[in-house]
């Protein structure tokens, strides 16, 4: 995956005070929740600078430009900060404080390519809908736009749009199929009753989608072409990074299994199967499954872990080498991390998606207990807890870990950027 | 007469018990298997505590709002159901047959009591019959099979009563009585009389859903 180059970040071991956020209170009387940049060097927050006048304070400095509304602060992986801003009712995207030239009646759903260079939002102007990438709107407009999806390189943007005008209440017209997928402003030739989860191929050339061709027939469409099989339901498809084939969870006779290009792929079925994902080399597929009613786990190439959870399993992730899998599991209201079929001993009030080290050997995750946050690596917690914390990042050599957090007492409110040797925590 | 008597009180009894126990077991097991396959909820949400809590309320006269709202029906149906189960089991004439055949016996009710209870059962059956004919909401639901089932249940008691009192043709009636009892027993698994077997499960399941999941009473 073409990630941003994080080897250029400051990986010097140590603790760096970035900003004392308590000072914000003296500067502004309206402070929203802060967002830290991926490299941890910056922390940004929406603030009110006057009556109906908002800005973003980055570290200690507010943007020069103010707006009458700001929301959806998001850092790209290249550490640029985006916000959705309104000036006199005209909406656009501000990147590092500078608004795009085009304005719209509304913008939302900011998305980035993997390297952060390409920024896309959904936009509405004069009741027409379209996407805007790097300040360049689609030329074609639609009466609605949903499921905004962007390719890995961020260059191609897909969504679901109505392609046939229907009056509200015309249920029969609806059932003939009035929706299609649109890629970079160009809709597919075929119309469907519904489309949902869109997925780009790894080369960004192809798009697959969950479709419903009648009220009862679900299948997968790839570039507008349907699989020749229908199912009673399907979930989001994925392209194989290895050969470009498409797989999707499909429901047959009340059970779920994985199908590939319209043919059964896994030889066993589950009470549930969704969020399947490929290892980087495409050789392995893992999915969240319910092996029986109410028991959740991960299945790799169709074989489930013996460890199961009763409440849920979510946020599964492959290690970079494709040999390991980590996920979040919840049982009896308590959350934990499971890696390769084994759960960490400790339970938490909340856990965030686990992160693998680049060498695939370590797993770290942000966790919450009693309103305090900390980072846990391979089950061992950082001694310190924080009142706000962001997901940890391993150094490119996997030896260090970057922690970004706002400390509670005694340093109340200070935002630190910490680089720690992983061994300090795991021992 | 000996041959007929011996047949109905011998092999036919066996047949009816085998059909009753075997059939009931078969119905229960096949339902359980089907539920395992198709109605996983039944297993997942069945709760012993809340199932029994609900059953308990429903098997106690006036234990539910419904029972309290229809006192006459409640009295009749409880007496009826208690009687049709207790009479055949605790009737001395039946017990002596068990004693003769298997040398087992237990406590029995006096014949005079049974005599009165039999009248109660028969009266209850008439009550149910009249209800079916007179009450529009019951009549609407009633089909021929409902009368047949009522007849199946009433028959052993009417014939038994007749035989006991030795009215005209009581010998033949005695034979009919035995056959009627056997028919009733054998038809339980295969008619709506199965409600006797399924009651704990349907009520228990609803009680579990209401109690354990929805934290509400179902009575």
């Amino acid at each position, binding site marked *: 995956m073409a990630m941003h180059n994080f080897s250029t970040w400051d990986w010097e071991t140590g603790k760096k005070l970035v900003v004392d956020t308590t000072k914000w209170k003296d500067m502004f009387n309206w402070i929203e929740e802060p967002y830290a940049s991926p490299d941890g060097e910056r922390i940004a927050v929406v603030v009110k600078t006057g009556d109906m006048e908002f800005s973003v304070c980055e570290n200690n400095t507010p943007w020069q430009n103010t707006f009458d509304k700001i929301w959806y602060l998001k850092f790209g992986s290249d550490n640029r900060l985006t916000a959705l801003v309104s000036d006199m009712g005209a909406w656009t995207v501000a990147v590092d404080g500078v608004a795009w030239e085009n304005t719209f009646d509304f913008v939302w759903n900011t998305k980035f390519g993997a390297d952060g260079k390409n920024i896309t939002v959904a936009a509405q102007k004069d009741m027409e809908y379209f996407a805007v990438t790097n300040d360049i709107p689609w030329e074609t407009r639609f009466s609605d736009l949903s499921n905004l999806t962007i390719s890995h390189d961020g260059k191609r943007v897909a969504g679901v749009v109505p392609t046939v005008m229907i009056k509200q209440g015309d249920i029969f017209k609806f059932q003939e199929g009035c929706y299609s997928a649109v890629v970079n402003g160009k809709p597919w030739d075929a119309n469907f009753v519904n489309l949902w989860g869109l997925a780009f191929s790894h080369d960004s050339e192809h798009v697959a989608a969950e479709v419903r061709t009648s009220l009862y027939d679900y299948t997968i469409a790839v570039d507008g072409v349907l699989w020749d099989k229908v199912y009673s339901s399907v979930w989001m498809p994925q392209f194989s990074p290895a050969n470009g084939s498409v797989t999707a969870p499909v429901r047959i006779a009340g059970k779920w299994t994985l199908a590939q290009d319209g043919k059964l792929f896994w030889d066993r079925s589950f009470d549930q199967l969704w969020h399947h994902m490929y290892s980087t080399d495409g050789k392995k597929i893992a999915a969240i499954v319910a092996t029986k009613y109410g028991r959740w786990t991960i299945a790799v190439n169709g074989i489930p872990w013996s460890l199961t959870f009763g409440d849920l399993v979510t946020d599964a992730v492959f290690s970079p080498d494709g040999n390991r899998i980590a996920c979040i599991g919840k049982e009896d209201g308590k959350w934990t991390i499971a890696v390769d079929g084994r759960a960490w001993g400790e339970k938490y009030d909340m856990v965030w998606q686990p992160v693998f080290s680049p060498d695939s050997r370590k797993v770290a995750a942000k966790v919450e207990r009693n309103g305090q946050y900390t980072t846990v690596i391979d089950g061992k917690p950082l001694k310190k807890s924080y009142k706000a914390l962001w997901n940890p990042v391993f150094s490119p050599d996997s030896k260090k870990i970057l922690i970004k957090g706002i400390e509670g007492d005694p340093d109340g409110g200070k935002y630190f950027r910490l680089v720690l040797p992983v061994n300090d925590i795991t021992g | *007469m*000996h041959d007929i*008597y011996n047949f109905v009180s011998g092999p036919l009894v066996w047949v009816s018990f085998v059909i009753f126990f075997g059939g009931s077991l078969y119905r229960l097991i096949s339902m359980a298997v089907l539920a395992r396959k198709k109605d996983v909820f039944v297993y997942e949400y069945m709760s012993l505590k809340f199932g029994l809590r609900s059953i308990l309320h429903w098997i106690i006269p006036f234990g539910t709002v419904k029972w309290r709202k229809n006192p006459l029906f409640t009295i009749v149906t409880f007496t009826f159901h208690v009687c049709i189960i207790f009479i055949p089991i605790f009737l001395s004439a039946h017990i002596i047959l068990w*004693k*003769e055949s298997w040398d087992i016996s237990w406590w029995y009710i006096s014949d005079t009591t049974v005599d009165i209870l039999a009248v109660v059962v028969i009266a209850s059956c008439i009550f149910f019959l009249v209800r079916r004919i007179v009450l529009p909401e019951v009549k609407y639901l009633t089909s021929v099979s409902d009368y047949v089932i009522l007849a199946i249940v009433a028959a052993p008691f009417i014939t038994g009563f007749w*035989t006991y*009192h*030795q009215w005209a043709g*009581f010998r033949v009636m*005695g034979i009919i009585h035995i056959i009627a009892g056997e028919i009733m027993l054998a038809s339980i698994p295969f008619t709506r009389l199965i409600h006797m077997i399924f009651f704990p499960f349907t009520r228990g399941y609803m009680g579990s859903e209401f109690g354990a999941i929805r934290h509400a009473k179902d009575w």
Partner: protein
Amino acid sequence: MEKRTLIIYTVITLIGFIFAVMSGYSQEDVTNVEDSAFEKKMRPAVPFLHDKHNETAGIDECNTCHHVYEDGKENEDDSSEEQECSECHTINKGDNSMALVKIYHLQCKGCHQKKKAGPIMCSECHPR
């Protein structure tokens, strides 16, 4: 007692007497199967015409029915017509009277079954 009542009782008794005589049963032969062990009768006692029964059934030996068992073996030379069944067939304390009922039933009904003759159903022996 009033006169009228007295008359009515007398008439009833007379009619009853005549009826009994006309029924053809000889007075001394009409008897019931009784056993003092039956403290409380569940059913009316079984009317039993001893001689007529034996005549019909072709029973000559007393011990066909009034048998005597010694050490589990029947003593064919002895008979027990002077005894009540319950003298030998003792009922254990705590046992219900079904045990005694059972031996009576087996004696009568059992034989009837064997011979395929005579009553076998409850109300055939126990009249109202």
